[in-house]
């Protein structure tokens, strides 16, 4: 009975083996049926009756591998839903693995068909032990990668390299190599030609549409942090971005068609290495060192290009000279020439008149030695005017930058505009005050005899002196402590700069420090609470100065009239006396009295006005000084000390 049992079993086993081999390929048989709605297999309940435990347990174990196969195959079939070349290469690797697996199955099948086959179910178990292991990990990887793309997918696979088992490392390294290949090609395109060939948004650098060429440097290219593979650090990603950006900048903006620096080295690098140098620690160090070098070279090239060909430094210098009032004689002369024009209401101003004035100011000052190209860029512009604005409110100088340099300066232009406005205003105050002083001195002799004027003149002298002191100190602070110091710091940084971004950063810090320094609200704001308040105080103080100027003007007008009349009367009186007549008639006397009282009246009014201005002025300066004194900036504290050097203003 033993032998019949064995033959029976043996026959049975042959059938079962065939079943099992089918199931390994994912095909249903008589005994092994597909699990409804799943990938696994179940034993047909009818045929299970004729099987013993031994056989059931064996075919169940083997069918597990079939289950894994089905899962992986499912993943590959789902691949059509996935887009992107990186996912594509992942699937391709899976397919490769599957065909390798089918090869094993084919051999098994051949073994089975041999007449003197030694194959048994247990032997199949041994045969598929290795593929089983492999499939397990492939399915695991596939699961981890589903619904991922690009850099995220690569990072997910990269994490499998952390496994200690050699076989797992080999599989994951193989897959990683495959998925990195597209990335590597993208990188080489980017680094060699600055081209992004990435139809499915998988690369970690993206190009955006930009509105104008001026935004090129800032907005065009970006690092997509989510897509950066885990083996590239943020810093390295930034450098890779910068290298390609440099290339594009040179090509597109600078129209530089020369051989790019470091291109050969990179070409050699990419032809000599393969994608695995991205993630194998030893090789990746070398790769990143060479990338670093290329980055440095291209950055240097861009910087040199801008400095030499596009004269970056000259432009900086010009901005400093003309928009930040560095060229003193020119600005002063321009102010003098413009003063009558700018007093008019804004609507009555024409760009061409002012441009002509600008031109003539350039002609007669040292600005004429400036480069023609730079002077051409300097133009007059009007700000948006509202009703009642005078020329002073709308006038501004503008420096036109275009081309490659424009990409750097364009965003800063509005800041320059506000800086110019602020500095120009201070300059105007200086001009106004010095004119007032001039008037005071020139007319002092004339009015010496008019005793009645003396107290009021004294008052006005004192007030204007105080204002002059105030303004001088403020100007000194702006021009020297803020502008010069920031400028020197920027030049130091610019000279040390290794890439364009360094220059841009230096320029930005320069601008913001100047903005803070001249007490303008910087756009970011909230850096210091007191700033806008200080700015407001300063504006009020400026207005008071202007107010005093007009008051003084009326005073001198009134006084001059009176003086003229007095002189006339005097002359007439002399004439009459010489003729031996009475000096004046009663009527004339009456007239005189009336006139004098009128004069006195208006003097009183003016006196009152001046008093008021003086009172207000002192009040606001005090407030301003208080703000300065409590400021956290030490320089501002010192400014407050300097303004109040003799404790004239009482600071709380």
């Amino acid at each position, binding site marked *: 009975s033993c032998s019949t049992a064995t033959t029976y079993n043996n026959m049975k086993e042959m059938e079962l083996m065939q079943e099992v081999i089918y199931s390994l390929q994912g095909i249903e048989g008589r005994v092994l049926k597909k699990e409804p709605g799943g990938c696994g297999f179940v034993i047909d309940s009818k045929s299970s009756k004729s099987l*013993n435990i*031994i056989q059931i*347990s064996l075919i169940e*174990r083997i069918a597990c591998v079939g289950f894994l196969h089905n899962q992986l195959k499912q993943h590959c079939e789902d691949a059509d839903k996935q887009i992107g070349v990186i996912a594509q290469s992942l699937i391709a690797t899976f397919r490769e693995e599957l065909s390798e697996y089918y090869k094993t199955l084919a051999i098994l099948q051949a073994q089975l068909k041999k007449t003197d086959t030694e194959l048994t179910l247990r032997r199949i*178990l041994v045969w598929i032990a290795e593929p089983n292991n492999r499939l397990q990990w492939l399915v695991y990887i596939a699961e981890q990668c589903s619904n991922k793309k690009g850099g995220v997918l690569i990072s997910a696979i990269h994490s499998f390299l*952390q496994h*200690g*088992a050699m076989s797992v490392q080999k599989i994951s390294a193989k897959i990683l190599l495959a998925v990195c290949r597209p990335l590597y090609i993208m990188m080489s395109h980017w680094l060699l030609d600055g081209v992004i060939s990435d139809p499915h948004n998988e690369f970690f650098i993206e190009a955006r549409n930009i509105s104008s060429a001026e935004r090129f440097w800032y907005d065009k290219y970006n690092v997509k942090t989510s897509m950066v593979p885990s083996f590239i650090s943020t810093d390295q990603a930034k450098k890779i971005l910068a290298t390609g950006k440099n290339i594009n900048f040179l090509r597109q903006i600078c129209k530089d068609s020369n051989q790019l620096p470091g291109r050969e080295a990179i070409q050699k690098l990419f032809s000599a290495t393969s994608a695995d140098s991205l993630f194998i*620690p030893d090789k990746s160090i070398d790769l990143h060192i060479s990338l670093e070098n290329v980055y440095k070279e291209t950055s240097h090239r861009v910087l040199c290009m801008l400095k030499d060909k596009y004269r970056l430094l000259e432009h900086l210098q010009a901005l400093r000279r003309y928009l930040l009032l560095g060229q003193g004689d020119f600005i002063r002369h321009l102010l003098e020439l413009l003063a009558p024009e700018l007093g008019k209401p804004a609507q009555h101003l024409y760009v061409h008149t002012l441009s002509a004035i600008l031109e003539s100011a350039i002609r007669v000052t040292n600005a004429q030695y400036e480069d023609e190209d730079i002077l051409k860029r300097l133009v007059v512009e009007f700000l948006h005017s509202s009703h009642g604005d005078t020329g002073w409110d709308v006038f501004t100088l503008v420096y036109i930058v275009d081309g490659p340099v424009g990409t750097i300066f364009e965003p800063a232009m509005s800041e320059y505009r506000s800086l110019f406005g602020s500095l120009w205003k201070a300059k105007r105050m200086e001009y106004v005050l010095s004119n007032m002083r001039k008037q005071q001195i020139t007319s002092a002799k004339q009015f010496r005899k008019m005793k009645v004027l003396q107290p009021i003149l004294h008052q006005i002298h004192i007030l204007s002196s105080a204002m002059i002191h105030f303004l001088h100190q403020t100007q000194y602070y702006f021009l020297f402590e803020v502008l010069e110091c920031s400028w020197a710091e920027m030049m130091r940084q610019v000279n040390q700069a290794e890439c364009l971004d360094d220059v841009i950063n230096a320029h930005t810090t320069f601008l913001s420090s100047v903005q803070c320094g001249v007490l303008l609200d910087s756009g970011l704001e909230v850096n210091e609470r007191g700033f806008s308040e200080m700015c407001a105080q300063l504006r009020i103080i400026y207005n008071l100065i202007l107010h005093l100027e007009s008051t003084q003007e009326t005073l001198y007008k009134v006084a001059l009239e009176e003086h003229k009349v007095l002189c006339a009367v005097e002359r007439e009186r002399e004439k009459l006396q010489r003729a031996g007549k009475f000096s004046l008639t009663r009527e004339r006397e009456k007239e005189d009295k009336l006139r004098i009282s009128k004069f006195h009246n208006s003097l009183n009014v003016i006196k009152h006005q001046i008093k008021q201005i003086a009172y207000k002025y002192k009040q606001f300066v005090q407030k301003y000084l208080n703000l300065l004194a409590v400021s956290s900036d030490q320089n501002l504290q010192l400014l407050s000390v300097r303004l109040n050097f003799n404790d004239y203003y009482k600071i709380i």
Partner: protein
Amino acid sequence: SSITLTTSRMQLENIPDISQENILIEDLLNILIGLPGCYIDPLKLQDQYATREFSLCDAIDPSLKDLLKQILPLASHYSTVQRFTEEKMRFEFGQVCNALAESMNSLIIDYTLFVTQMETEFRSGNLNLHKLWFYIQKNLHNMSFMSNIATSISKSDAKGGKVLSLLHDHITGYIGDTQAQQLCLHLMQAACVPYMNMLGMWIYKGIILDPINEFLIEDNEMVQKEEMPVDYSADYWDKKYTIRRERIPTFLEPVSDIILRAGKYLNVIRQCGKAVNHKVESIEYKIEQKHYIDAIDKAYKFASINLLDLVLKEKDLLGRLKSVKHYFLLDQGDFIVTFLTLCEKELNKDVADVIQGRLDSLLDLALRLSSSNNDPYKDDLCTELLPYDLQHQMVKIKTVLSIEERNLFLTAQKKTNLTVIESFAFSYEVKWPLSLILNRRSLACYQMIFRHLFYCKHVERMICQVWRSNKVAKSFPFLSAKQYRLAFALRQRMLHCIQNLEYHMMVEVIEPHWSAFMQKIAKVSNVDEVLTCHCDFLDACLKDCMLTITSLLNTITNILAICVKFCKFMQGEGSLNITDGQQQTEKVESFRESIASLDLEFSEALKELLEQINGLNKETSDHERLYNLLYRLDFNSYYSGQFEKLGLKNVRMNISG
């Protein structure tokens, strides 16, 4: 299937033994690869790591049953190992466990193959249970060994280095059993691969690739260098990378320190912005320790030589140290004199009344006026006003007192207002990586020595000033000049004392120590040695300048205080010289008394100092240099003679004894 089982079970009773055997072998072949059989049932597991037990069908012939019972442990071991490999393949158990599991798994596949060979044998009718028992011997041994390892790893929840230690212990423990040892070695070599890769990255590149914390070195992520410059260097050296003792594999224990340092050096080099070009070589585990120890040694030497080169040659450590010595150890005489002259007035003020910016600018001036102008590192020197005086600082460091006493002492000290000279110290800005050597601790030592020397120098100058203003006495008539004789003699003794103290410290202590230090530093082979010999130098200087012995320091401070008191007294007295008459004789009386009391105070203090030095332990050579001071201070036995005269016989000046 339960029906077939019962029917077959029914059958079994009626089957003769020989056929029973065949059926059982068929069963057994399944059981041995972890699948159920018809007559042998695996029992449920007690817990995850328990041994698998089996129940046998009652119908089996008893002797066959016993035979089966002999074989079944193989199945139990197989089950244990299989469970172990499945579990340890998971990421969270770390690379070492993964690798070990993998290698065990491949052995298990081999074992499965063996079982199928048994099957073939069985199918061709050549197998019986006895034969099977004979065939499985080798596998049984191996499998039991593996399950043994697996159980001990699982039970101790070992990971990383601990697993390796365990395997290593097994290897060394099974020297007698070659088969087991070979097996274990095989497992060990597989398990070591990831660990040795980590080790290689660390010792050749200074990089830690250790996602699951298995490696023996741990990177304590600290704040970056730029963010926290103050204590960074000190912390970096001691705390940035640490050895986790429990993770060291036993076979790396003796070299763990070297491993730590090799990577640490490389990291310092990298932090300086230099590339580390060292090829990674694979390290393998061998029973003979030579290979990996050699590799580690070589890597260590490479790193240490590079760093030493960087520190000594590129960063000019010696130049730095010399520059530090110029300022802190008063090596540059003209600078110190210029500086003292410039800020004489400032130094006598109260700390609260002085602006540090002023001191800084004076220091700057002094630096540029003196020969220090040629020192390239002079700009790193700046001033510091410490909130405690030297004595206080020393006490704080030498926490010899109990806490209460110390608090008492501290409060007592706090009350007094410090003058600038008491709180003044230089400080020095050191940049990475030299800040590893000139760290805060060593700078503090320099500061202590400096403060002591500086104060002595200051007192010496005060006494000299007294001498200068006393020159007026030359023009006095003999009689009135005579009144000052005592005072002048005292002044001279003070000057002698102070100058000899200074001479002792500068010439007999610092200079010899310095030259010894320089000789040592020329021969060092790694940075740690530089650190130790620098430390030794400072410690020796501190000790021989009597700063570390509290009682001696107190006495010296006392002497200096008396000198200061005397100088102030003399300067105040100076203006009163010319007045005459009755008043003057009174004055002269009081003057004489004051001088006499100061004299007594000074002599007492000096005597105490001499006694204390004399009383130091002469057995050891610790204080050898100090005895020279005895000769200097009392070179002509003036004091000893005087003391004897005064009846203070207890001072024995027998130095050689």
